[in-house]
């Protein structure tokens, strides 16, 4: 830890031109906002695609007004073709997992708040940080460009299983150029996140201000740190895998295509590749990715709950260790995605037990959250409602993991809507609730304006009830054997399930519309909201010690000195029932960790 309290070490001078200030900015706060804006645009695109998909699944032959404008061939007269359904589904999953669930909670909030929470004036490598965003942005542009290719985006799903991802256009619409663009986009995304992780780790380890020991870091900072460690290893595996897949397309290699495969009665010009190799590489990234999406949410929700409970968690250390355990175990469980893939059946058992063990740190986190509510003075506002909703969703999505962790049950549930319900609740909705909680909590600091609480609460109620109406029935569909990734339900046994799909679609349309309330609230308050005070939530961590919005170097030329643990609530101080980390005021604490 460096002693930088006496003087602020300027890595770069304040920009003067518009371009350097708002476009190619080196300031971590601007980069954080750029990531947030990217996630917002991506979320709007991803959600619109999910609406189209849901309408098609409920009323297969329905014409969706305007869809033909997106693709004349994919939706002639607005009626979606089977292949176009798969293409939109692939893009929905890709956009949401990579460009929303990873960018918003990790890259957006992490960029803006990690340096401030550790008491630094910026990240150590601002140029890398700027590149991180713009490379990620380029990835998004490349991905979206596939909509405008002759046969549209890839239809292979966000998992892009081999050899469908490598055989070329003979595999179907979008499997030529569409796949190459997908792989290039994700490789770029990986580069962006690697550059981001390379900044987050030294920011946490080396740029902490005086007095900021590791155990004095807020839980959100710990979550971003742990996530960046995962990002560094997970994205480093996916990126080369994407490059190998591109080589299979453009250089005649056969990394992922086996010998003697026949399509359209023609022997494919590939030999010696391994189909399962892709799955191993993808899921070695893919399972940590689940935690890359959710661990920042765990940290953000903990941070927000503590502020609104007016007392620290029962144990800060246990939460940190649990997040660490989730991160480590996430690399040992990835094979549970492959129980029936054809890999050695003994491997399935080997992957099953760590998957079951991961329930333990998850349970500990939930127990600590829930039982910390005991004896608190819980404040209800939009941020705390979404944080509490996060817990409910995390539990609901988590318990279905009990089933999918077991290879024998996976025989029945694999590739069904049960899986869709599970991951949407636990890494989709829960992570989104973490993003919403973070937005309502931190928007005043990021934008200098308060968001509208009434609209925030309406947004919460519609989202909370709506998300359950959408994703709980997915589990029932899966139990009845409803296979996922079908563009229409033609099998006899699926006919009785179509009314359930219609209910889900109606719920999805209403819940999706509710997100427009959030969008309006965010944009309206950004420009016309009530000006935010420096510390509207009476919180303790360093981001609330600095003016709103924070100055260019975060702390106005002098880095703060930290005197306290991050969450000193329930004390008698001159400020009220809390004492800020940077306040030298000595108070008697009733809730010091034993």
């Amino acid at each position, binding site marked *: 830890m460096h002693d930088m309290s006496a003087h602020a070490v300027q890595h770069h001078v304040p920009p003067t031109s518009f371009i350097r200030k708002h476009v190619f900015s080196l300031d971590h706060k601007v980069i954080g906002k750029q990531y947030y804006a990217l996630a917002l645009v991506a979320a709007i695109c991803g959600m619109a695609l999910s609406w189209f998909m849901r309408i098609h699944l409920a009323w297969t032959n329905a014409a969706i007004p305007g869809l033909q404008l997106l693709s004349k061939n994919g939706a002639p007269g607005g009626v979606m073709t089977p292949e176009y359904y798969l293409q939109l589904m692939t893009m929905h999953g890709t956009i949401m997992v990579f460009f929303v669930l990873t960018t918003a909670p990790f890259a957006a909030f992490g960029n803006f708040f990690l340096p401030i929470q550790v008491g630094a004036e910026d990240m150590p490598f601002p140029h890398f940080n700027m590149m991180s965003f713009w490379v990620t942005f380029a990835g998004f542009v490349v991905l979206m460009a596939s909509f405008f290719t002759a046969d549209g985006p890839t239809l292979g*799903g966000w998992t892009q299983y081999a050899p*469908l991802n490598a055989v070329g256009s003979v595999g179907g619409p979008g499997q030529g150029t569409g796949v190459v663009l997908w792989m290039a986009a994700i490789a770029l995304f990986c580069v962006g996140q690697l550059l981001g992780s390379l900044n987050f780790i030294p920011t946490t380890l080396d740029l902490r201000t005086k007095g900021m020991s590791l155990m004095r870091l807020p839980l959100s900072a710990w979550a971003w740190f742990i996530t960046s460690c995962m990002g560094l290893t997970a994205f480093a595996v996916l990126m080369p895998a994407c490059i190998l897949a591109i080589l299979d397309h453009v250089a005649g290699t056969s990394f992922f295509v086996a010998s003697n495969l*026949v399509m359209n009665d023609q022997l494919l010009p590939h030999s010696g590749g391994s189909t399962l190799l892709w799955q191993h590489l993808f899921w070695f990234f893919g399972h940590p990715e689940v935690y890359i999406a959710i661990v920042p949410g765990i940290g953000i929700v903990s941070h927000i709950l503590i502020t609104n409970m007016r007392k620290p968690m029962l144990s800060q250390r246990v939460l940190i260790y649990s997040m660490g355990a989730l991160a480590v175990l996430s690399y040992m469980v990835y094979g549970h995605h492959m129980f029936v*893939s*054809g890999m050695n059946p003994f491997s399935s058992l080997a992957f099953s037990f760590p998957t*079951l063990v991961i329930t333990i740190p998850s*349970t500990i986190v939930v127990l600590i959250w829930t039982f910390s509510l005991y004896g608190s003075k819980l404040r209800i506002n939009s941020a705390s409602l979404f944080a509490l909703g996060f817990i409910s969703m995390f539990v609901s999505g988590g318990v279905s993991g009990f089933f999918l962790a077991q*290879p*024998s049950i996976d025989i029945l549930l694999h590739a069904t809507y049960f899986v869709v319900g599970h991951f949407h609740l636990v890494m989709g909705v829960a992570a989104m609730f973490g993003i919403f909680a973070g937005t309502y909590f931190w928007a005043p600091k990021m934008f200098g304006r308060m968001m509208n609480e009434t609209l925030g609460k309406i947004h919460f109620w519609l989202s909370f009830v709506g998300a359950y109406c959408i994703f709980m029935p997915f589990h029932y569909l899966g139990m009845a*054997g409803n296979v996922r990734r079908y563009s229409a339900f033609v099998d006899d046994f699926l006919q009785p399930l179509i009314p359930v799909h219609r209910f889900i679609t109606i719920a999805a349309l209403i819940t999706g519309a509710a997100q427009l309330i959030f969008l309006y609230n965010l944009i309206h308050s950004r420009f016309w909201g009530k000006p935010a005070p420096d510390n509207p939530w009476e919180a303790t961590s360093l981001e609330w010690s600095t003016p709103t919005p924070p100055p260019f170097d975060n702390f106005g030329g002098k880095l703060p000195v930290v005197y306290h643990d991050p969450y000193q609530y329930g004390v008698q101080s001159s400020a009220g029932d809390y004492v800020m980390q940077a306040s030298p005021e000595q108070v008697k604490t009733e809730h010091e960790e034993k």
Partner: protein
Amino acid sequence: MAKFFAVTIIVIAILSAIPILRHTWVAPEDISKHGHLIDEQMSETMAEAGISFLAAQFVLAFFIWKFSNPRPDAKLKNFPGGAKGLVIAALLVVGIEVMALGIFGVKAWANVYLTPPSADAMPIQVQAGQFAFYFRYPGPDGKFGPIHPELINEGSQNFYGLDPEHDVESRDDIVTAEMAIPVNKEIHLLMHSKDVGHSFFVRELRVQQDFVPGLDVSLHFTATKIGKYEIVCTQLCGLGHYNMKAYLSVLSQQDFDDWLKKEQAMQ
């Protein structure tokens, strides 16, 4: 608002549990010899997951109800026992619970995947391709003729790339678009894909297995109930994935022999 939120959580939790308790949407009746083990494992897991789900939601709702917006003079308190008790509870209760599930689940898995098929199991080949399954029976010689991928031609209905002119074993092979098996007879299913990844899923048989292009994969099972069931593909394989299916007929031995003779005559 907090109390309303607490009630909402409880109502959602109860409503979520009702279809499970009423068995509104469940897997169809098991027709396999091994399936009851999977179903029992499923029931035990449902009980443990269901109790965990309801307990967690109820406690969360109760604490939100009880501790939100308290009187200004209310004192902060910590849960008796603190974090230590909770960690020990998680380690012991959840640890034992999930380990038990894992250990008992091994039996169900082992029955399908870790025990070899019996010597007299009936071999049947299944080939998956965009977007159809084709089945092959070895004929009276009990041997499958070799596959020549370069000869695969759907137009001439040589789905397996057989060369009966040169391969004696191929001459009596029977290739069908429908799968039929005798009831109570163990089947040794030999699976391969001709193009991309596919899967073989029969809900009633409690069987699901991916086809891996480039690898021969096998499964064994015994059907115990006569009937007609749907085989569907569960691995995304292209635009026709949703429509890739075949039928499985479980027949009496006599009906199966008759069916096979009929199919042989049609080759």
